[in-house]
């Protein structure tokens, strides 16, 4: 599984401007809608999950994995990628501010494990992540992922 295969250019936003965490999650949700992974309802479900449980989705320094549970608003399993031009606080005690939001939608609890494994490998490599965060176009993000995402 290469992450580039899971991320067509329409699923990627680079150096986006978001005034707060809600706007950032909405932009990541819009990329899921743009590629036919979800409907707009799922974006609202991702926001509601954070309202309910807090910013636990900020699971690593600077990185938020926005998602909700499988629902009718999920058309197929997929991800989106949104890097931010200016980091945005999500209210997390340790990992704020966020520079990368990955949107995840899954039709079941297991079908996305390969994607998560590939994502974990990329996030664990500081040098690759720095290049990805600096990338200024979806095409560049895909090229970098194609080179470095091997998991």
């Amino acid at each position, binding site marked *: 599984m290469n992450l580039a295969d899971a991320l067509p250019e329409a699923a990627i936003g680079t150096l986006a401007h978001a005034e707060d965490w809600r706007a950032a999650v909405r932009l990541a949700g819009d990329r899921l809608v743009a590629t036919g992974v979800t409907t707009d309802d799922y974006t609202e479900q991702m926001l509601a*999950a954070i309202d*309910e*449980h*807090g*910013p*636990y*989705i900020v*699971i*690593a*320094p600077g*990185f938020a*994995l926005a*998602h*909700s*549970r*499988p629902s009718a608003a999920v058309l197929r399993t997929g991800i989106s990628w949104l890097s931010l031009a200016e980091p945005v606080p999500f209210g*997390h*005690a*340790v*990992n704020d501010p966020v520079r990368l939001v990955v949107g*995840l939608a*899954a039709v079941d*609890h297991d079908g*996305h*494990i390969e994607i*998560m*494994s590939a*994502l*974990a490998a990329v*996030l*664990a490599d500081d040098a690759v992540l720095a290049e990805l965060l600096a990338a200024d176009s979806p095409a560049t993000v895909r090229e970098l992922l194609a080179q470095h995402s091997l998991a």
Partner: protein
Amino acid sequence: MKIVAVCGMGIGTSVLLKMNAEKALRAMGVDGDVEAADIGVARGMARTADVVLTSDDLASEIGDVPAAVIVINNFTDVQEITDKLTAQLG
């Protein structure tokens, strides 16, 4: 050793945490069974587990369980998980 990796939805974050906890156990040479769970079922599963791994935000929602609740800050950092599990096993 039975470990439950807990997140809000039972997909995504807990799956990532489960994968990295399994890597940590392998690095430690410890036999263990790691399951991913959402916060709704986590309390029940935690009754029969040795360790619960979760985020700071969700730790307080798990409540009073016999399992050791360990807060992980960086879910992608196998070293942090290894260090905290090692400390727990003492």
